[in-house]
């Protein structure tokens, strides 16, 4: 982006450039399935979906805890389940050599998945 397109900015150009780079760079978050990487590509796809669902479940559960509609025992059980799910997810990511960034697939005009 040329500087004459910047109509107003009180921050530094370096910061702007760095942030725009993050918004437009989706190299890491692309899903590249080829015959040579079918296993890891599929693992990335599956883990992405699992992670998305896990985060949605966690968010909904925390909303219910916050809303005060759960008993102490229910919160305890929920905490145990969600914590174990999180740990299991960490294990799987480690096993397939994936990071959080890898699982945040870029959906083009819709933005990042998570």
């Amino acid at each position, binding site marked *: 982006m040329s500087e004459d397109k910047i109509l107003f900015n009180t921050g530094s150009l370096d910061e702007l450039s760095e*942030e725009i780079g993050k918004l437009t760079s989706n190299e890491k978050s692309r899903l590249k399935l080829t015959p040579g990487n079918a296993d890891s590509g599929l693992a990335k796809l599956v883990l992405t979906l699992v992670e998305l669902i896990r985060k949605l479940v966690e968010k909904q559960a925390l909303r219910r805890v916050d809303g005060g509609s759960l008993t102490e025992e229910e919160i305890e059980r929920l905490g145990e389940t969600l914590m174990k799910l999180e740990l299991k997810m960490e294990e799987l990511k480690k096993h397939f050599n994936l990071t959080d960034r890898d699982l945040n697939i870029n959906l083009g005009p819709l933005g990042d998945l998570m």
Partner: protein
Amino acid sequence: MDKMIYSILSVKKNPKKLNTLLIAMKGISGADLYAVSLDEISAVVCDIKRADLIADKTNAIEYAGVIENLAQQFTLLPMRYGSLMESTDLINKMLGRNYHEFQQNLQKVENKCEFGLKIFCDSEKLKAELRAKSEADTKTPAKPAPEIKNSVYRDWVNKKLKEHRLEELLLTYIDSVIAEITGYLARLNAVNKFKKMATEKTIIDAVFLLDKERKDALIHVIEELQNQYPRLNFVLTGPWPPYNFVEIVIK
């Protein structure tokens, strides 16, 4: 040889002007540009071999440059990079099939251009400030999680709950900033689209469509908003072709 389409534009006012302009311009990799027209609508195209169409930064910049130059003279609908058709005859047929939609969208963006607004801040610092403010407002910690049992699971829930509440505080704050911006923009008759938390630092990524002559008024609005929110960094860019305000599913 395939045809790559750069944009669809209205030439009702001055069709000769387009041809003169295209002679003076070049497409990606120096390709000649020409117009395929149907009545008042033209598609600006160049010849390209499908195998030569590489989606890299250089080509994308050249492609955007062509659209940018055309947008300075004409009302247009930018096409997505890599929009290919096999012949001018097929382009003509496509223009005919979608003529009504193109006309409608061209009317929608006539004499208008797009502006981008990105609002940056240190979201962690902002969250800490919002939390401190929330606690000060209520004189007690905001909604303290009940610490009834001291188990590892309950501690985990408490930790997550704390993060969740901070996120909610931040999103409420972002919504209030968006509401403020929308209020200002209503005065300029702008159409807007907002995206929250595009990155950790980019808390708002917005685009506006408004009359070209209202550019200075928009800059003034952003200056006012910047004064109102000194801890945020407002970056306004433009004018751009209406990349985010054209919605056509081409038949």
